């Protein structure tokens, strides 16, 4: 076993999936000779050849649409959209077609396809390269939305996403691409989709998050341990369909819930979780549910972006605040 960063784990999972199933093919901009702008597909052209690692013209609608055509013809395309800010043209294809093929043909045609895209800020990228848009995808029925938060989970969840018989949008936390590293065993073992992961157990407060925010949430949870506050940290991992049971059990135990998201506040996925907690656990609550999110503003350019994204400090403060309710 070797230590790998998240983008290397993505690369390992892609190579593994392509080795075990020759129907898996990769498409995207600059993914072949260049290995992807983040190097997620580095070396795969040499390993698998140009029929399976395909540079596309610069056309995101076509990338998504071509995937649908390939998938309907029983191949398993895995597309890379270079940055989530360029995913918007794909939404037409995802919402109007990929998500509906199975149901509108009653299973005659299906769309086993994955669209991978880096997501979120914190890398001092230009405009349109730092957005978090998972909520838009989550409101589309018929697709899975998966968002790993570590190299191990990126490896396991991506393998499962590629093997899944239905369309998956796979957000990769850009900020975690290169750091931290952790041991990733390239054993072909997928991680279960539609499941939350409890990263840290605790009895006092439940911190629920996904993607890059988990690193901040874990740091905050560890920092308040010394104060005798035991936070339970949950990685939602598959945002849609949600494993709400795990969240519900935790909140019923702790009576306190903080949801942390990098995306803007209003209409975000945190609102869905908060609503479900209100519906099903309100009588267990000791304090109001808290949401930490980016503000409802356009993502600032890099010099000020850190003021918009929740961080360890804000989460720590929220944990202390929610513990003040008894």
């Amino acid at each position, binding site marked *: 076993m070797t230590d790998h960063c998240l983008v290397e784990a993505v690369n390992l999972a892609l190579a593994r999936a392509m080795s075990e199933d020759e129907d898996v093919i990769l498409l995207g901009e600059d993914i072949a000779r260049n290995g992807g702008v983040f190097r997620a597909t580095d070396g795969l052209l040499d390993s698998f050849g140009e029929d399976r690692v395909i540079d596309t013209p610069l056309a995101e609608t076509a990338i998504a649409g*071509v995937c649908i055509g390939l998938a309907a013809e029983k191949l398993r395309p895995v597309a890379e959209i270079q940055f989530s800010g360029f995913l918007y043209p794909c939404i037409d294809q995802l919402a109007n077609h990929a998500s509906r093929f199975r149901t509108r043909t009653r299973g005659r045609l299906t769309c086993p396809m994955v669209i991978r895209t880096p997501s979120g800020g914190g890398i001092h990228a230009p405009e349109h390269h730092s957005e978090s848009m998972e909520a838009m995808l989550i409101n589309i029925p018929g697709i899975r939305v998966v968002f790993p938060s570590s190299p191990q989970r990126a490896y396991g969840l991506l393998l499962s996403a590629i093997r899944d018989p239905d369309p998956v949008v796979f957000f990769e936390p850009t900020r975690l691409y290169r750091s931290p590293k952790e041991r990733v065993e390239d054993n072909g073992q997928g991680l279960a989709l539609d499941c939350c992961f409890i990263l840290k157990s605790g009895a006092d407060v439940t911190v629920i998050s996904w993607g890059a925010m988990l690193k901040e949430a874990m740091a905050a949870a560890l920092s308040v341990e010394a104060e005798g506050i035991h936070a339970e940290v949950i990685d939602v991992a598959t945002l849609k369909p949600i494993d709400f049971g795990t969240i519900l059990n935790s909140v019923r135990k702790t009576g306190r819930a903080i949801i942390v998201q990098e995306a803007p506040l209003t209409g975000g996925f945190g609102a869905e979780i908060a609503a479900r907690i209100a519906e*099903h656990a309100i009588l267990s609550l000791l304090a109001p549910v808290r949401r930490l999110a980016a503000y409802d503003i356009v993502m600032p350019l890099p010099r000020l972006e850190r003021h918009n994204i929740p961080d360890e400090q804000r989460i720590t403060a929220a944990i202390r605040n929610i513990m003040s309710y008894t």
Partner: protein
Amino acid sequence: MTYVNTATICLYTIGANIRAKATEQAVTMRSHPDNADLPTCFIRSDGQLAARLPTFANENAALVKLYGAMLLTRTFDEKAVALQRTGRLGTFASSLGQEAVSIGTASAMRTEDILLPSFREQGAMLWRGVSPKELFLYWGGDERGSDFAGPRGDFPICIPVASHAPHAAGAALAIKLRQESRVAVAIMGDGATSKGDFYEALNIAGVWRLPVVFVIANNQWAISVPVSRQTAARTLAHKAAAAGIASARVDGNDVIAVRAEVGEAIDRALGGEGATLIEALTYRLSDHTTVDDARRYRSDAAVSEQWPKEPIARLRHYLTNTSGWSKADEEALIADCRERVERAANDYLSTPPLEPDAIFEHSFAALPKDLLDQRGGIAMAKTIGPHHD
């Protein structure tokens, strides 16, 4: 047919059906797609021959089959509109006047090819083996209509205009990667050629030399906007030039011409020569759909002018003139079409809807827990909303 960026140019003209193979020298002179302006035509509006027929059309039975398919399509459309008008079918898009584009295209395809229809191509779908009952089911609001028993690999009807063009490129890429002898054929309207996904699909089909045919049913109207306000391009076939793919213009009311051009494009695709854009010139004699009133944007006189060019009468004139197609033949065929459509309509009308739980079926290969919980809430939803415990 104009071959862009290739050494050979083929030129069709009305009247003589001359197929000139240009020399290298001529390429520079003729590489402008102007040469594609004149549409291929074999049978004129009056039923007279415009050019020597292609081989497949020499057999009378083949022509009768095309004629019967167009008549079945028109009969289906009439019944569908009647059902909609009496509240027994949803909104429906009739293909009145455009039957030759649909039938000509489908008749050029082989079983193993893939059809990607837009919402006015019931003719092509019927030809390929989708049953009229399944089409009624679809337009009657039942997903089972797209789970057709016939061409299992064909795509379902595409409603968002041009959004299936990239699917055709994708299906063609799958064919190419697996080195199969098949072709993807997508049909869409003139309005589709204004959309970005159309251009993206053409471009990708060109650069990857994909075995795909894009057929534009240019019926002159995108709901209320005429082609003249859709594009400044002189013809829609010109749009192939930017993608570096071949193009052709065809009289879309001549089923033989449509079949010939689509057939040639399929042959080219099978021969590894890549994609073709075919502009089939026709006219939408009906409203856009049953909820449209075309008199708001075009005069009855303008539509009346188009009726003499419609495809079914044209082929009937030809058959009458050349093979003694009789009134009795015609009446027998009409009766047969009516009987098939009536039976299908009755089958559709007597098919009960699925149980309410069926709305969850096929959302995913296996229903995730969250959806199982939501499905369990159907019974309770009326009183307390979705329940998750």
